[in-house]
């Protein structure tokens, strides 16, 4: 029903190796991008931009970063939010201290700074793995947030480390409205997502997957573990750093170190698990799911409460939200360990042959 790829013959290597080898995929992607770039800005309201679409894109980017590290290279990290914080504060400091630096350059520098910090905290991964490494990344989480709070230089001597983002101006055009910021974030996220998709099928990506599946075996077939693991930490932290910079500049406008809490790290980890470990698409699906679920429950729970005449306070609603989060994580791990991305894949397989499966 959906589409079949029969009859698309490849006659050159270039055609065979392209990022989206199936014509319908290409058309679908272009249509999706057209909707995102042209359709959405025409119809979405200010609330949609600033409360749903922008955070969705930013968290997708962070989830993508974590997915590269955890899903592809197999190194579990609980310090994602801290790397985002590094990105946010680095972007702020580059803007503040370097005269006349273009904002996009300072975003890239923020990503690179985060990558450097990521490599530093990735060093233990050469010696330890699994739970030990997960706990080691917690060190990054606590240490970085503490540093940002306590060293006044990093936040330009503001009280309790709060920074306010500068205005965004690219080539003389000021990005002031939520719609402008949405388009900026969208462009960056699309670019980085395509880069990631390309990266994970390259030599680097395959080396990551080999290390994930068994690092001793990978080193036996000649993959340099140190390089591969540290590269995974660097690339992942770069993505998280850019996401953090966007979080400060395009979403909240002013952030404090404590906002990048362990809770946020867990939230991003949940996006990766529910969306699909080791899947680019999954990062987006997971981010959408985790961000929409609370909004959904906020609407749904009082409705059910009214239906059964139960007195639900707002505290109860937030408790139920946390419970549902936890239960969903366990549910997904048990029923579909590869997450929403895998469900999408199964649906596609089924629809290919529907309604004549034989």
């Amino acid at each position: 029903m959906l589409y079949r790829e029969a009859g698309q013959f490849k006659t050159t290597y270039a055609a065979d190796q392209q990022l989206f080898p199936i014509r319908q995929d290409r058309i679908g992607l272009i249509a999706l991008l057209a909707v995102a770039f042209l359709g959405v800005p025409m119809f979405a309201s200010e609330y949609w931009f600033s409360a749903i679409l922008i955070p969705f894109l930013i968290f997708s980017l962070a989830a993508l970063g974590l997915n590269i590290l955890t899903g592809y290279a197999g190194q579990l990290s609980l310090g994602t939010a801290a790397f985002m914080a590094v990105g946010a504060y680095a972007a702020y400091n580059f803007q503040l201290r370097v005269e006349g630096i273009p904002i996009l350059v300072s975003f890239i520098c923020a990503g690179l700074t985060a990558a450097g910090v990521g490599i530093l905290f990735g060093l233990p991964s050469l010696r330890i793995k699994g739970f030990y490494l997960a706990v080691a990344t917690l060190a990054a989480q606590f240490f970085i947030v503490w540093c940002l709070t306590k060293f006044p230089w990093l936040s330009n001597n503001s009280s309790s480390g709060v920074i306010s983002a500068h205005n965004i101006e690219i080539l003389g055009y000021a990005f002031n409205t939520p719609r402008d910021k949405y388009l900026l974030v969208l462009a960056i996220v699309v670019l980085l997502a395509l880069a990631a998709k390309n990266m994970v099928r390259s030599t680097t990506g395959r080396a990551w997957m080999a290390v994930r599946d068994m690092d001793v075996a990978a080193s036996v077939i000649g993959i340099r573990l140190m390089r591969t693991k540290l590269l995974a930490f660097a690339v992942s932290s770069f993505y998280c750093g850019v996401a953090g910079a966007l979080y400060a500049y395009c979403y909240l406008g002013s952030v404090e170190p404590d906002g990048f809490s362990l809770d946020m790290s867990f939230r991003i980890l949940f996006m990766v698990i529910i969306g699909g470990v080791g899947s680019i698409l999954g990062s987006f699906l997971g981010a959408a799911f985790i961000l929409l679920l609370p909004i959904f429950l906020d609407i749904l729970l009082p409705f059910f409460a009214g239906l059964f005449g139960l007195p639900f306070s707002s505290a109860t609603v937030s408790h139920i939200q946390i419970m549902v989060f936890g239960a969903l994580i366990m549910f997904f791990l048990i029923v579909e360990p590869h997450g929403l991305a895998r469900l999408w894949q199964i649906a596609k397989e089924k629809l290919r042959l529907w309604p004549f499966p034989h």
Partner: protein
Amino acid sequence: MEFFFEVLIGGLLSGVMYALVALGFVLIYKASGVFNFAQGAMVYLAALSVVGIMEWGAPLWLAVILAFAIMTAFGIGTEKFVLRKLVNQPPIALFMATIGLTFFIEGLAPMIFGSDPRALDIGIVDEPIPYILDNWNMVISKFDLIAAGVAAVLVTVLALFFQYTRIGRALRAVADDHQAALSIGIPLQHIWAIVWGVAGFVALVAGMMWGARNGVQFALTFTALKALPVLILGGFTSVPGAIVGGLIIGASEKLAEIYIPPVMQDLFGGNFGGIEGWFPYVLALLFLLVRPEGLFGEKHIDRV
């Protein structure tokens, strides 16, 4: 010098409190290879159920018994509905499932028993021991000393239980090799249910101690975060490791909190309190670089 010893002893005693939480981790990890991130949340659930049941009018002893029943039921339920379905999954998947479990408990417990912080009175006062105060001029809390005693008793009982009882032997066999234990007729699922029950008991003891000291509140779940570096230092599989690790972490973090900030203040200016939030982690991290399996952990050999 007296001040140094006072800080040191205070640190050691608070380290014992960390060790109490770390013990629960070790038990489950030893017997089932699951790294149970939810141990901190279980501590919270246990303390909250004691306080909650007492609020409904039950005396302390009854509340403790009922809380123990709740913890056991909860442990068995977790084993039955979550972990059993995840057999043969990679350990990381199990770990992430326990993170999910943490959130589940953090929502469930305050929904049943209420989320406002409350005091838990178990009849021990938190005051300096007069004898030591008079003779050595040091402030050592009576409560901390009793908590240390409780931890010592708990560790001894657990050690004896593991070493000399039939179930203890079965537990050690399962920890050693699941398959071999199954093949000689040890009922794996009973054993896991027992381990989760015991971990629930340890969580109850830890929850009552922490709850009596700091009040029963959501912050109790963070005890797990304090216990993690203890585990790394001591090794995931060793009961004595949990104790020794706890002592090292407790003492060093209190000493660091006292002596490092002034030095940093001289260097950079500003206020550098709150080092104890990350110091144990960095200490554990540095330690890992030297000895990846912890002080008492078993050396892990990778085979292709």
